[in-house]
Each structure stands twice: as C-alpha cells, then as structure tokens.
C-alpha cells in the first residue's frame, strides 16, 4: 500500500505492504495500527471529501468502515496465506484478495454511507425504521482451522457490527462500561424519552443480538 503524501511539509513516510499491515494488525503492533489508520484516513479524505458536506458524518463513516476492516483482520477473516493477503469467502474458503486493503475499506465505507442514510431516516421516522439491525446479510462462514472460541468471537463481532449505532452504544454502556440505566439516560441526554423506554430498548437490542448470534452458532454447531 503506497500512499502519496501531499503538501509542502509532507514528510517522507515509511510505507508498508498490505501483507505487512495484515500481519502487524494481527500481532497488535500499535505503531502499525496507527500507521494504517492514518494512511487509510488520508486516502479516504483524498477520495471521499467531495461527497460529504458534514465533517462529522464523514468521520463517522470512516470510523465505522475502518472498525469493520480492523475487526475482520483482527478476527483473521482477512489473513496472510502463502505471502498473499486472503479473505474468507461465504463458503469458508480463503481466496487471495483482488483489491488492496484501502480499496476494500472504501467498499465498507460505501456500505456505511448507505447505512448512515438509513439510520438518519430511522431517527426521523422511527415507526418505519424501528429495527435494531442495520443489515440482514450475515457473512459468517466456517473455517475448519478456526477454533470454536475464535469462531464465536467472530460471529458476535459481526452481529455487533450490524447493530444500529444506538443499540451498540446502549449495550456498550450498560454491559461493558457497567453504567446504570440512570447514568446512561443522563449520558445520552435526550436520546431516550424515559428510563423505561431505555430499558426496553436495551432489552430489545440485547435479545435481538443474542437471537442472531444463537442462530449463527446453531448453523455451525457451536454451543452457546
């Protein structure tokens, strides 16, 4: 992946191949993670800037897309086989990627853009877009070499990745951050009308997430 740096003060930066990036990210090399983020961001800014008028929206899309790609690499859905960057297909097989990681990121960004448009409508017309899911298509597949635990993690990540931003936020605050419903209500300001409303939303999000994950576990004979 070679990204040109522009500008008068642009420094000559070290660049890494997609292979190095994939391996680095899987080994949780902080410097590599940061380099990849900055490089991808620059690429995104150079190619997508004209589309967005809203800087926050642009950042939101980039972060979601980058998170997806990062998670895929982290979960080894994208990995290095025989010195090639490969991605797991729907049937579980790994095939060499035909595009670069940044191009792939842009494909994610495109999907995120569509999702964002949808979630904007969801905010405006909740009765029409009341689902907790952003997309129905699950891309989970099973790899014989993958351990059961890894597989489960990956399925959960994919299920979380398909949650609406609202759901993901509520669940993270409640389960991971250990915040009380009152605290979440306060933190999210006017996003929920009442504590009961928040509780219902939280339960609905969690139940749907569990159902989806369980359905995938069942599909691949994994124990819940």
């Amino acid at each position: 992946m070679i990204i040109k740096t522009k500008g008068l003060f642009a420094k000559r930066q070290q660049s890494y191949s997609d292979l190095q990036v994939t391996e680095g990210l899987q080994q949780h090399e902080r410097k590599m993670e940061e380099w990849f983020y900055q490089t991808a961001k620059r690429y995104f800014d150079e190619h997508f800037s004209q589309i967005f008028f809203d800087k926050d929206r642009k950042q939101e899309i980039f972060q979601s897309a980058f998170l997806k790609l990062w998670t895929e690499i982290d979960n080894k859905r994208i990995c290095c086989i025989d010195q090639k960057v490969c991605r797991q297909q729907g049937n579980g097989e790994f095939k060499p990627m035909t595009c670069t990681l940044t191009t792939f990121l842009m494909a994610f960004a495109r999907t995120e853009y569509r999702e964002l448009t949808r979630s904007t409508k969801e905010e405006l017309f909740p009765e029409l877009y009341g689902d907790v899911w952003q997309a129905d298509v699950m891309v989970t597949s099973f790899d014989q070499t993958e351990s059961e635990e890894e597989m489960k993690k990956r399925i959960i990540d994919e299920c979380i990745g398909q949650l609406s931003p609202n759901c993901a936020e509520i669940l993270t605050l409640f389960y991971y951050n250990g915040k009380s419903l009152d605290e979440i209500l306060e933190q999210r300001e006017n996003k929920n009308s009442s504590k009961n409303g928040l509780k219902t939303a939280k339960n609905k999000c969690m139940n749907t997430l569990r159902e989806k994950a369980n359905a995938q576990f069942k599909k691949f004979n994994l124990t819940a």
Partner: protein
Amino acid sequence: MEGDVFERNGADKMTLLITERLGERQKKLKQMEEWERKNNHKSRMHRIYILASIAAGLLVLLVLSPFTSSESSPLDELGITAPTMSEFRAATPELTRINKLIEEENYEDALTLTAKAMSASDMAIYELEGVPEVWGSDEEAAYEDDIERVKNSELRWVYIYLLVKNEDKKTAKKELKKYLKYPQYCEHENEARELLKKLKK
C-alpha cells in the same frame, strides 16, 4: 431479569462473550479517537507553523524593504525610455557605441562616452559660430551648424538621461536647463520640462 445495573457474576457465557466483544469494539473506537485527536493536533500545529512562517516572512520583508526597494526613477515615472540615436543623420561609430552601452545598461561608461561626444559637439558648434568662412558659404555653414546643433541637442538629451540613470540629479537639472535653452532643437521639450519639474521636487 436484569436490574438497573449489569451483574457480571450471574451472567451467562453468551452475555459475557458479548460484553467482551463490545469492550473490544469500544477499545478500538477509543484508539481511533485518540489517533484522530493526534491528527487534529498535528494539523493545528501545521497551520500554526504555516501562519508563523508567513508572519516571519512578512516581517523579514518589512525589515529588509528599506534596503531592497530602491526609489523609483523619475524616468520610469514619466515613462521616458532610453533615447536612441540610430536614426540620427550624423550618427558616428561613437554614437553607435553609446547606444550599445545603453542597451547593455552600462550607464556609467555610456555617460563618460556621451560627455566626450558632447564636448566635441560643443567645440564643433563653437568653431562653426566663430569661423564660418572655414566652411565655405554662409548657407553651407548655417546648414552644418544646424545639423551639429540637432546632434548636440540629442547628445545632451542622452546625457541627461544617463545622468538620471546614474542618479546625478544635480547635474541633470543643470543640463536640463541648458537643453531647454534652445527649444528649436529640443525634440523632447515636453519630457524635459516634466523631468525638470520632477527633479526640482
């Protein structure tokens, strides 16, 4: 049934796994936010550096301007271009040489040479006035005198131009007065008057 706060101890495996993965996701998001903050800080610093560089550049220009910017020449202000004597009937190799030196912007040498040519011309006029019989008939002498005066006037104009170019305004003023003494030969009378006014300021 969960209460107002999540209790880890009583949670099932699936919930714990979900919690762990939500945590992983949040860590990644936080890391990205940190990189973004770093980015913003960098670009802010970048902007500050650019602005500081521009300000420093302007300051240097401001400080150096008295040394670098020269006063504009009155010739330029009046639009007076370098005089040429190529069409002059009495053109000599000497005059051609003056023209060449002016073209090369060697005003110092051009001035010296013009001064010589001018004093030769002054001498010639003096001779023509003093001993007209040398030239044969009066009419012929008057004609030669006329030619020499035109040449002299042209030379003086070149001399004035070169004096201004060499920043000798005092002599230029003196020469301009002499030049304007014989308006019948002054091809550049208007320019000369304007220039004199300008130099007197």
